[in-house]
């Protein structure tokens, strides 16, 4: 297996895009390619994620992106894995490059939903769940994670102030991130005063509907031995699944796909949990960040909330989590999210993160979940 590296990554500002998804995708893709020191004609394959392209009346967007990049003959494929789509694309890029099938691969994730009203956007998001056995019975996407939160609280006594501490922390980080949807801090009082969307989740427990685009270039070490920016060596690239409907699983207090992915990733990387300097984890809702940290073995079950209140996961804490602001405050343009986590890690490794720079950025983990954990990606990155 060859050494595969992220040699370029870029993200636009998440929020409301005036341009179409394909235009935003091409812009970030070219920025990522330019950062890598490669040129578009070096790209051997493009993996595109755009779950809800149909909301823009557009499918098969890969050839449109490649054509606009001046590489119309390069093959493309669309990778859909709900909220973990572009990290699934990264895994495909890793497989192609590490396996010797391609020297350089482009991964692009893009979503544009802001032109939909809340009812339609809520209905689109619910499509990631099982229509016949969840959505048809009244589940919304926040409702599914809220149901997990209710079980987590029942078992561990998880406090509202603990979930609120996740929101406050991630907003503070996003306030220092020019790519973030919400660039403002909030207080616990603001959090507690926000309306309940799906009990026990309040508005400030929930990620926003965001537009956005992010791109990654993965290249073989032998193709580009001395890239202009510090590359991310892909130490582990793991994808897992679990029983799709969460009510059919043995436990409702975590996501088994996260546990499995982290265990496999640490084995693949040959690393221990305490060797990770910082994490970007899937916090579509505040409870999801707590469960991710517990499922992946960074905190004991039920202990992540207290640790968050105590500051362990702040930028200057012992384990910085979501310095980008996470899905919660940076935003969650579904198909762009996984790639944007990697763009954040790329900026952190290259000390381009400004006011949100973590103290040490040499080994990092990205965790990206599809829907309620039917799919999961974990990537571990290190320096050359």
């Amino acid at each position: 297996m060859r050494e595969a590296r992220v040699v370029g990554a870029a993200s636009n500002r998440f929020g409301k895009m005036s341009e179409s998804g394909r235009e935003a995708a091409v812009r970030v893709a070219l920025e990522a390619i330019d950062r890598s020191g490669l040129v578009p004609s070096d790209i051997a394959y493009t993996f595109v994620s755009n779950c809800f392209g149909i909301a823009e009346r557009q499918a098969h967007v890969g050839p449109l992106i490649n054509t606009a990049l001046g590489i119309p003959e390069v093959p493309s494929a669309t990778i859909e894995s709900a909220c973990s789509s572009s990290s699934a694309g990264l895994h495909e890029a890793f497989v192609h490059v590490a396996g010797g099938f391609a020297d350089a691969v482009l991964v692009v994730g893009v979503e544009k939903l802001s032109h939909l009203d809340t009812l339609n956007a809520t209905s689109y998001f619910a499509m990631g769940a099982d229509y016949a056995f969840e959505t048809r019975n009244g589940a919304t996407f926040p409702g599914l994670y809220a149901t997990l939160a209710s079980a987590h609280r029942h078992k561990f006594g998880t406090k509202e102030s603990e979930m609120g501490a996740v929101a406050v922390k991630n907003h503070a980080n996003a306030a220092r991130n020019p790519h973030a949807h919400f660039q403002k801090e909030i207080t616990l009082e603001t959090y507690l005063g926000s309306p309940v969307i799906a009990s026990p989740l309040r508005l400030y427990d929930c990620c926003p509907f965001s537009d956005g685009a992010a791109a990654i270039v993965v290249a073989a070490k032998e193709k580009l031995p001395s890239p202009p920016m510090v590359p991310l060596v892909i130490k582990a690239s793991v994808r897992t699944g679990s029983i799709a409907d969460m009510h059919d699983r043995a436990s409702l207090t975590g996501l088994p796909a996260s546990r499995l992915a982290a265990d496999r990733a640490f084995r693949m990387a040959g690393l221990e949990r305490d060797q990770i300097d910082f994490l970007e984890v899937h916090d579509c809702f505040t409870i999801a960040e707590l469960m991710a940290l517990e499922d992946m073995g960074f905190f004991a079950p039920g202990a992540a909330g207290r640790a968050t209140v105590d500051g362990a996961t702040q930028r200057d804490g012992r384990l910085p989590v979501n310095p980008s602001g996470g899905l919660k405050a940076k935003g969650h343009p579904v198909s762009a999210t996984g790639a944007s986590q990697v763009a954040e890690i790329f900026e952190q490794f290259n000390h381009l993160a400004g006011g949100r720079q973590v103290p040490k950025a040499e080994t990092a983990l990205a965790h990206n979940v599809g829907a309620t954990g039917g799919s999961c990606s974990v990537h571990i990155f290190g320096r050359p």
Partner: protein
Amino acid sequence: MGAAEPTPTPLHSIADYRSAYEDGQRLRGFRSGCGFVTATWGLVCPKCGQRDLREADLSGRGKIVAYSVQNVPSDEFLNDAPYAYVVVELEEGGQITGWIDGVAREADLTIGTTVVWVASYKPGVHFGRSPGAGSSTGSG
């Protein structure tokens, strides 16, 4: 390689499942040889991988193990919010989902409350509190 197992014939379709509860007849589900019980459609047991799923009529009686009051619904529940989305552990084992109308606040329900499936003209699997129901766990 051993001889291929025969492809199972679906015991019932998703459309069969849906029409049976919408008509108020029964809640159709599956029981696997390993004891796994579910309403979710499949050909092979997701827990043990065996092809011995059998048709099972689900009782529709059980207790709430997790729930959430929905204030911002999707389009099919636009006129029903607020309501509770519930995960119910059936008395025969297995968990299914459904909803309870008229629940406006989280405190209006508790984990452990016993519920029963009630046929409804509204969408989805609709539950009501069991007559004289309380919480079987005493906590919420």
